[in-house]
Each structure stands twice: as C-alpha cells, then as structure tokens.
C-alpha cells in the first residue's frame, strides 16, 4: 500500500487529502488554518486524516503541498528586508521601474506608486561592467564591492540580491560578488539574477531576483519547520512543494528558488481541475476559481495547463513560469456601488473582505456584496446543508436595496440580478483574456468551476461563453489538495539566446537545449528522480526580429535529431501561431529570444473514485423546496444535498445543489448530471 498526501492551506481552512494509490481511495480532513504558523494546522490535518484512514504516519510516502506563504509575504508586505547590488549607474533601476504609469490619460494624478521591493537606501552600486555580448568592459573592482557591502551592514539586511547589467551574458561578476558577500555579510541568503532569471531586460530580472530574496526567509522558515515537524511526527516520506507552473519541487529546491512558488496555490487548483476533468472525460478546459475577493481563470489544452512567462501577485509582476491564470479583481465579497455622477452600477474593486464580510453574514457589514445579491435572489439558501451557517436575508435585502434606490429600480431583486449580471460580465472579461484573446474559442472547452463562489456563477458563465459542460468538482477545497496529490515532479532551466535564425545553426540550438535539459535533469536526479523516469520538454521564445513580444513555441525533442531542418520547422510553427493570433505574417528574419528545457517525472498512478450507481432520479437527495429569482420572476427550485446524489442522477434546473463549502446553481433550461467520478456536469437541455 502506498499513500500520498495532498495538503492545501487556505485562508480559513487547511484541507488534507490522503490517497491510496492502488485503489484510489481517498480520505479527507478539514482543519482550521493556523496563520501564525501554518505548519501547525497542516500537522493537525495530517494526524486527523491518518487516524481516519487507520494508518500510521510512517506509511505516508509523500507529502505534496501547495503553499501561499510566498504569495502572502508579498501581498501583506511582510517579506524580508532585501539589500540590492547593481552595476554603477543603475542604482535606481527599481525606483525608475521602466517609467511606467498605469491608467488612462490623467491616470498619473490618482496613481499611488508602490515602494520598491528593495529600498533605495539598501541599494548599492559597484564598479564593473559587462557588455551585452558578455565581454568585460570594466573588471570588477573588488575593493569597491567590499566597501559598498559594508554600507549595508547595520541596515538589518535579511536577504541580498545581486543584479548586474548584462549578467545574463556572463555571470562571473555576480558570482564573485556572492563570494565576497558571504564574507562581509555572513549568513545572509544571496540571490543572483544570473541564477534566478538569466534573461535580458534589467528591470524585470532585478525585480524577480529581489522578489526571490524578499520571500526567501519566510519560505525557508516555513518549509524547514514543516519538514522538521513532519519528521518529528513520524512521517517518513519526503515533502514536495507545488511550483507556480504546476510541477513539484523538492523542499530544498523550493527554498533556493522561492520566486517559483508565488502561484503555488492557484497552480494546485488548476492541476486539480485537470484531474477531475480527465476523470469526467474532458481534455480541454477553462478553469474558473471564484473566491471572496478575486477570481482566477486559466486555460488547459490537452490536459496541459497553459504556462505563462509572467507571474503577477498584487502590483508585482515577476518573470517566472506559472500556470497562466488571469486574476479578475472581483469575487463574492465585492461591493456594488452606484457613483452619484453617472448612476452606473459598478461592482468592485472594493471588497468587504472576511471582516465584516457581506451584510448577510451578520457580522456588521452593510455594504451590498455579490454574496448579498445571491442571497436576495435565493441562489444561496438561508439554511445550508447541515444548518451550520445561517444567512441574514433581511440584512442582505437592506444592503442591496440601497443599490436599487440609487439606480431607480423597483425592487431589491432587480438590483441583485443586476449585480450578479455585472459581476458575471467582469468574469467573462477574464475568461475572454485566456480564450478568445489567445485565439481559442471557448465553445471548444469545458468550464471547470471551483472556489467558494465559482459553482454559483458557473452556469451563467457557461451561457455567456458557450463552454459546456460546466464541471463542478466535489469540494472546492479538496480540489487544490487533489491537484497537489496528483501532479508530478518538475524542474526547468532557461537562458537568453537572442540570435536571429540566420546567426545560428540547428546544431547550435540542439546543443543549447540539450545542455539546459541536462542541467534541470541533474537537479532532479539529485532529488532522487532517476534519469530513466525523466521526460524532457523543450520550448523556445520566438519573434520576428525587432518585435517586442515573443511567442513560446514547443520544440518536439525529435526535431533535434534532424538539426538541418529544426530551424525551418520552428519558423513554420511560429508563423502558424502568429497567423492564428494576429492574422498576418512578416517576411523579416525570425529570432530566438529564450530557450527552456522542462524535465518532468512520471505522473502518479492514482485511481479515480466511483460513486454508487443511481437511477437518474435525484429525489432521494432533495432536502427542501425553495424558490429563486431568475429571469425577472420567482420560480420554484429544489435544494439537493450533494452527498446523497448518485452516479447518473440528473438534477434539472432551476435547482440548487449544496455541500459543505459550496453551492451550485443550476439555471432553468439546464441540467446537472452526476458523473460517476463525483463531478456535476451542467449542460443546456435540448
């Protein structure tokens, strides 16, 4: 018997999922999260789930974990004090921040500029210079390096980032500075830009390197404490952390490159969505994860999530591979308001947060939120399954009534329907970003909905996008933990090439890619993944010479066996993609900007669960008769307990399906079919 443990730490709950690989049997535990030290909640959950399964901790072979420690450090501004070393003349690279001001024509008037992640008083410059081709223009002045680093002593530096101009072309000066820094600032962890992101563009590389240092101490503390506690608690298996790109990394590697973990949380959701979609028989899907304050959407093709080259957390955008999720700043807690001047209905970006939360939560909130609108419409029944939570309908009606009054609508229901329509439209904007705007037709995809509020809005978004079926997996928290438990080991190596096709041969390219693969493969081998179990994938970023944006193109490993034609094949592939995205081609030479190799371990063999067969009639799960407001009127709608539904049961809309931490709305004219693997599949009825 072999057990894998998936662990997902959310803001409120920590979900732990134990999977017995052979049978696919799962056990689940939900415990309160412990924000002060997340490891405590994780250990509680692990203890609980193992007790339930009747196994010893020592029987757990692997603990797989998606963590938001790095993300939270950035969002809460509680990362390390980072010292930064730059090339002389470039000390203000983060202060100037590419001179970019967001917003429209007068946007600068109201833009609050965020402070640099490494403060300017903690940034020093050293005398040295490397040219863009790697040639040394000025040797590193080591005495100057020592003198500059001395200045940082006494500033309370907890991490050091080194980012020199053109270091992507030659890392020697950065490496030497690291050696000197180890003497001058002993014990301070060092991030080198040539390690973290050996790519052209000094601002992005510096920022990413500083971000790595910024989150590193917290990630290190957390991962080490968790690993230690697991060992002390008797868990024999190793700890692996989910990376932003959906692969797993050893605890040690995670500590070295914490900037690769910034989207560890959402990556768990996407990999979990892939798992449930596959069980339900779908390979192309759009993920829709709607929470309290924001919503993440992503696209998966052929069971492979789209990977983006940028990671965005709050105001911060770093260059690091991650599942390409786009965030819409609206969720269940978003507040609706009506500006006096234009009397338009706006939803968000302000959010009621967890405290006071929506008016319906009865914790003192009075602002109308999306959740309140759902309560007014009856989409969220007041007594949810088990009766654990009750919602204050009158408070919700009063809050939403303010919107009705400001807009001159005749009922809270009309305003509530408007709020839900507007927030759905915001979501649609996000879904379009990952689909239509990338040249994908959403009608070719299924929509997998999760997060606290996703299943409530999913049917409506299916209607807006034409993405069917809408798949609602069982238990939104479980989904991330499931993703953690069902993904594979991965590492990546990358470098800037920056050469036109005419300036290199197929052999050159093959050699570069194979070197990168060897590099990533070696790191995985050190983590115990045998070479025989490694699968290599290659990708290069290509553009027309002179363009500012690249298109990533996958390179089939077999192409490298025919080096004479590899560039031609690559060019054709790029042209096809450019044509698909923008409907035109150019005749100028192609250029390779970056090359990457990704090495992946085998996918764990986890068997799916199977629900008992039902007879198609969900009557046994009906818990109450209810009415909901939809299409301008109240209609009767049954409320069903998801736990009692059987495989093959069909719940016809209008209906509501409730479970412990989620509510699914099935609209009139639609039906939700219970799949044997546990998901609800919502489709329009003919």
């Amino acid at each position, binding site marked *: 018997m072999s057990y894998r443990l998936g662990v997902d730490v959310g803001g409120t709950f920590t979900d732990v999922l134990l999977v017995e690989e052979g049978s696919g049997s799962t056990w689940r535990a939900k415990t309160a999260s412990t924000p002060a030290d997340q490891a405590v909640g994780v250990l509680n959950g692990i203890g609980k789930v193992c007790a339930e399964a009747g196994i010893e901790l020592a029987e757990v072979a692997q603990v797989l974990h998606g963590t938001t420690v790095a993300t939270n450090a950035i969002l809460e501004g509680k990362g390390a004090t980072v010292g930064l070393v730059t090339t002389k003349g470039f000390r*203000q690279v983060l202060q100037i921040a590419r001179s970019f001001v967001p*917003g429209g024509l*007068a*946007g600068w008037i109201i833009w609050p500029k965020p402070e640099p992640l490494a403060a300017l008083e903690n940034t020093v410059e050293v005398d040295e210079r490397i040219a863009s081709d790697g040639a040394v223009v000025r040797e590193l002045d080591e005495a100057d390096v020592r003198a500059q680093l001395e200045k940082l002593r006494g500033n309370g530096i907890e991490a050091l980032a080194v980012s020199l101009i053109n270091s992507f072309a030659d890392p020697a000066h950065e490496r030497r500075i690291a050696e000197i820094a180890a003497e001058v600032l002993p014990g301070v962890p060092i991030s080198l830009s040539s390690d973290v992101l050996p790519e052209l563009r000094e601002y992005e590389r510096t920022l990413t390197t500083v971000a790595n240092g910024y989150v590193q101490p917290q990630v290190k503390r957390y991962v080490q404490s968790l690993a230690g506690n697991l060992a002390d608690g008797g868990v024999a298996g190793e700890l692996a952390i989910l990376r932003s790109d959906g692969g797993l990394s050893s605890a040690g590697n995670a500590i070295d490159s914490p900037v690769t973990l910034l989207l560890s949380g959402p990556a768990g959701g996407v990999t979990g969505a892939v798992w449930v979609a596959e069980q339900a028989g779908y390979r192309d899907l759009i993920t829709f994860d709607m929470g309290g304050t924001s919503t993440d959407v992503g696209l998966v093709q052929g069971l492979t999530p789209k990977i983006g080259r940028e990671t965005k957390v709050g105001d911060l955008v770093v260059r690091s591979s991650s599942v390409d999720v786009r965030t819409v700043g609206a969720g269940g807690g978003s507040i609706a308001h009506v500006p006096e001047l234009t009397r*338009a209905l706006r939803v968000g970006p302000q959010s009621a947060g967890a405290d006071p939360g929506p008016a319906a939560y009865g914790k003192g909130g009075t602002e109308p939120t999306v959740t309140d609108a759902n309560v007014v419409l009856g989409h969220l029944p007041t007594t949810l399954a088990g009766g654990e939570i009750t919602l204050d309908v009158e408070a919700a009606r009063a809050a939403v009534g303010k919107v009705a009054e400001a807009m001159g609508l005749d009922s809270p229901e009309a305003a509530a329907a408007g709020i839900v329509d*507007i927030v759905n439209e915001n979501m649609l904007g996000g879904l379009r970003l990952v689909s239509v705007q990338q040249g994908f037709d959403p009608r070719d995809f299924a929509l997998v909905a999760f997060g606290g509020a996703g299943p409530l809005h999913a049917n409506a978004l299916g209607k807006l996008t034409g993405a069917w079926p809408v798949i609602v997996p069982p238990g939104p928290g479980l989904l991330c933990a499931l993703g953690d438990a069902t993904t594979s080991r991965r590492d990546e190596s990358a470098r800037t090439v920056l050469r036109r096709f005419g300036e290199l041969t197929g052999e050159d390219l093959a050699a570069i890619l194979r070197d990168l693969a060897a590099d990533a493969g070696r790191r995985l081998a050190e983590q115990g993944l045998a070479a025989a179990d490694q699968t290599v994938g290659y990708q290069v970023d290509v553009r027309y010479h002179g363009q500012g944006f690249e298109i990533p193109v996958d390179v089939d490993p077999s192409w490298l066996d025919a080096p004479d034609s590899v560039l031609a094949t690559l060019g054709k592939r790029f042209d096809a993609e450019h044509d698909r995205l923008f409907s035109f081609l150019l005749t100028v030479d192609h250029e390779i900007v970056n090359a990457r190799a990704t090495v992946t371990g085998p996918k764990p063999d986890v068997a799916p669960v199977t629900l008992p067969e039902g007879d198609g009639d969900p009557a046994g799960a009906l818990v109450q008769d209810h009415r909901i407001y939809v299409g301008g009127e109240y209609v009767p709608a049954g409320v069903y307990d998801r736990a009692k539904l059987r495989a093959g049961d069909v719940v016809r809309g209008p209906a509501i399906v409730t479970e412990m931490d989620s509510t699914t709305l099935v609209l009139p004219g639609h039906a939700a079919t219970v799949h044997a693997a546990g998901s609800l599949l919502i489709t329009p009825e003919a």
Partner: protein
Amino acid sequence: MARIIETATGTIEKGEVDPVTLDLIENGLRNARYEMDEVLFRTALSPGIREQHDEFPLIADPDGKMVVGQFGLSIPDFLDGFDGTIEEGDVLLTSDPYACGAAISHANDWLVVVPIFHEGRVVGWSAMFGHMSDVGGKTPSSMPTDALTIYEEGVVIPPFTLYKKGELNEDALRIILNQVRKPDWNRADLNGLVAACRTAARRVAEMCDRFGTGTYLSALDALLQRNYDAMKVLLSMVFEEGRTLSFTDYICDDGVGNGPYELKLSLTRTGDKVHLDFTGSSPQAAGPINYYINENLTRMFFGIYMITVADPQILWNDGFYPLVDVTIPDGSYWKPEHPASLNGRNHGIGRVFDLFGGLLGQTNPALLNAAGFSSSPHFMYSGHYSSGERKGEWFQLYSIGFGGIPGRPMGDGPDGHSLWPSFTNIPCEYLESYYPLRIEKWETIADTGGPGLHRGGNGVDVAYIFEEPGTIAIHDDRWLTYPWGVNGGHPGARGTKWIERADGTRSVLPSKCHDVPVRPGDVLHFVTWGGGGWGDPLERDPELVALEVRRGLVTTKGAERYGVCVAEDGTVDAEATETLRDQMRADRPAELPVFDMGPPIEELLARCEEETGLPAPKRPVWV
C-alpha cells in the same frame, strides 16, 4: 465627403436600454479597446510603438462619435475630407493632419480607420493611430528640427482606401514604403494597426449579435448621454457662472531660434456650457513645434481632466461635447496654416496637461497638480555599422525620455516616470543588444524635483556612449522656462543636454537639434526636467526629507530648501531644522503664491546664455 454603401435596407429600431445591459455593453467596449492595444503591442516592430506604446485606439458610433478610447480622433472630420465610397471590408489610411481636421497632428502618426459593418449596415467605426519611427524625409526618424514646411517631414499620405473590400492596394503601399528608411517597421506596425481595428470590429459585431443591433446602438446613445449628464452637473458644480479663468504656460523655443511661445487658455461658463478660448496664444511658429489641435481634441483633454477624478471607472467618450464651445484663432500656435511644419508637436501635446491643470485647478483643488513631465522628449541615433559582421548595415534608434511627475494633491510625484499612459522606457540591455551604444548611467538626479509638502519627481540623466559613428537628434523643451510649483511648492529643475567628446571637449546641445555627428567614445548626457512641488516645503516631515537624503534622491544641501538640516550620518538635526525653518518663514511673505513659475520671462531671457550655455531665443510676435 465620403459616401457609405450599405446593403441593408430599413431602419434599426432603437429604444430604452435597461441599466444593466447598458453596463454590460460598457464593459464589452472597454475590453475591446484594451484588446486593440494588446494586438498592436505584440506585433509592432518599431521601438516607438513596441516598447513605448505611442499609439491611441478608439471605437466610435455610426456617426463617428467616440464611445470608448482615449484620444478623440475626429472621424467626422476624416470622413469630410475623404472623397470616395466606403463599404464593407474597407480599411482607410492617412497621415496628413491637414486633410483630416487634425485628427492626427504630425505626419509620423499613421491613422487607420475601419468601418464596422454588421448585417449590411455601419454600426460603428474603429480607429487607431501609431507613431511610425520613420516616414522618410531629410533626416532619420523624419523629424527635422529646422523644418519650415510639412514637405520636409517625409511622406504625407492623404486619406485613401488601403484595403478595398478586403483587398490590399499593394501598389499604393509599395509607393509609400519606398519613401521610408525602415519599411519592415512600417509594414509591421501598419499590419498591427489594421489587425487591432479589425479585432475591435469583430467585438462590436459580436455585441450586436448578442444584444441585438438596436439595443447595441441605443446603448451607445445612452453611454454618450451618460457623459453629457455627468459633465453638465460637474460644470455647474466647479465653475462659477460668468467668471473667466485663464492660465498661460510656455514652449521654450521652436528649434530655429524663436521663443518662448505663450500658450494661453481661458474658460468661462455661461449657463450649461463652457467656452474654452485659446485667444492670446502666440502666432504659429516658423519651426516645427506647432501643435495643430482640433476643437474636439480640446474638448477631450478638458473632459478627461474633469471626469477622471469624479468616476475613474466611467467609459470615457464624446457625449459631453455639445456642452463645450471652443475658439482656436487661425494662424495661431494651435491652428497653423498649411503648409506649416508640425513634426515637433510633442511638446505642445504634453504641455496641454500643464495648461489644463493650471486652468482647472484654480477652482478644483483635486486637479491642482504642479507642472509635470509634460512632453515626450525624443532621442534618435542612426548610422551604418563601420565594422564587424554587421558592417554596412543601417541602424536607427528612436526612443522617448522620461522625467519628474509633479507633486500632486495625493502625494509626491514619482521620479523619472511618464505622464503619458502606458509608455515605458526601452531597457538598457535591449538597447545595448540591438544598437552600437552603451549606457553608462541611468538614474534620477537628486534635487531636480521641486520642493514641496509633496515633492516633485526628479528628472533623469541617461548617459549614452556611442560605439559607431553616426548622427543624433534631440527633441526636448523646458530648458528655459521652469516646471512650476503650486500652493507654495517650488519649481522643478530644467532639462539640459551635453556631449562629452572622446577628445575631452564638452559642448551643450540645443534642446532641439538633428544631424549632430557623433564619434565612437563620445558621451551624450540626456538630462530631463523635474516635476514642480506641491504645497509648502517647510511642512514636509523632516524625517522623510532625511530618508530621501539617505536614498540619494535629495542632497544634504537640497534638504535645506525644505528647511531641514541633515547631519553627516543622514539623520535630522532637529534643533538646527527648527531654527532654519523659523528663519525661512520669517523671510518670506505670509501668503504663499498659488503658482510659482520661477523668474519672469524677461529675466530668463536676459540670463539665458549664462545659465544654460545656449543663446536666448527671439520672442515671437503676431504680424
């Protein structure tokens, strides 16, 4: 006058649109507009658009009124000046400001206009213009600083049909591209503009399908009405009936020895309407700095200031235009007569920000910012590689410089940033990889931001070392007049440019020059100006001043302008600070001026050569 051919007959029923559908369409239009940017950025080749995002999209209603966008291009004026038929599949192109009522303002901007057809009728227009890095003419990048007529400014494309029913007019395009130095760039950028406009057209057609054409068009009317109603309320709230407000700012010179040019704008509200009047501005310039502005653009600038602060999420559009009357004197800086040269109008466009800020801020404290980085100064470098594997190959760089955002009601002005939305600098590593140059220094200059309770942003010093012989060109301003401060804040520092030659000599360059030869090893310092300060600098927290000294953004000496004494270790000397502040308060008038423009023009001119190293320009006069 254009004739539009529609195959559909009958009329579209318009009607009431429920408020939620209206907001849905508003959202859809906003998404489509940003998608236009995205398509162009990703496909453009020329650095001006690709890295610096010098482009402006819009979507209009069937009458050509902008319903979303940020630069109200005048489609009605464009159609007036276009003599031909327009049908489904057509794509129109122009670069002639004089033929489209100044919908664009110099020949480097190529404007693409696409009629949006749905079921055989026009349901709107999409349009976008972008700055081409080169359009031919006598100097690389096509912006000769000594041009006296538009004929010296490269190819000027009259409005014509680039695609007829989807078919590209290859011959015309070949003739145009034969005039320019980097045809690949223009072709790619033009393709990007067309692709962006077509994307918008697709999105609009999708909305017509989803909501019904009648509902969609009614929603546009309602969105325009929404701006009208909002503006009507704002106008009566902000401006006193019958009171005339005026403000004057300057362009320092015209590139051929004249200046400074007075830019005067006055505003009077009568009833529901306001009147914007440029009377009192200087006559058109001999040199290429004229900013040919049209009435609608003036309304757009005015409106965006008024409304951005009131409802930042509003879908910005032309709906309020009937509430604003505009007077622009013929033959003035703002309405020069053909064939006046126009290429260097970037200073005028930028200065409009300062002008409106100074005008509207007088009765609207939330809009009263100091003077900021109100231009987009250009730097060009071009030539042929003299050796190596690229020997003989032509290189051509066009880039924009950035400077100090002014002190604002909400806080300090960012250092070395852009006043223009979404502009970004070109990374040093990119420049060094693609051009024969190295950058020795790229930082903001301490003390160049105007002191104030909210400090003005610092200007920037970029030092370029050239590695190949070639020529450079510069378009900048604010080297003579000061970026003014407000509410007791002081002006920021002026900009300056100089070359340190490889042979050790140093020469100051005019703020506008072209075809200046450079040799390997020469170093150009491109120093931009700082933003003005906002509020009384003696009220600024001394600890913050000291922190900025430690950060290198203010010097110890500069801290004294805030009345703050900073000790050698970078901490505040509290006692000395108090004494200094008391002294400074005693030495100044009790009432601080709203505007601090720096010394009067006569004084600036008298001390010009001594302070700037450049001869004083000659003041322009109306004849």
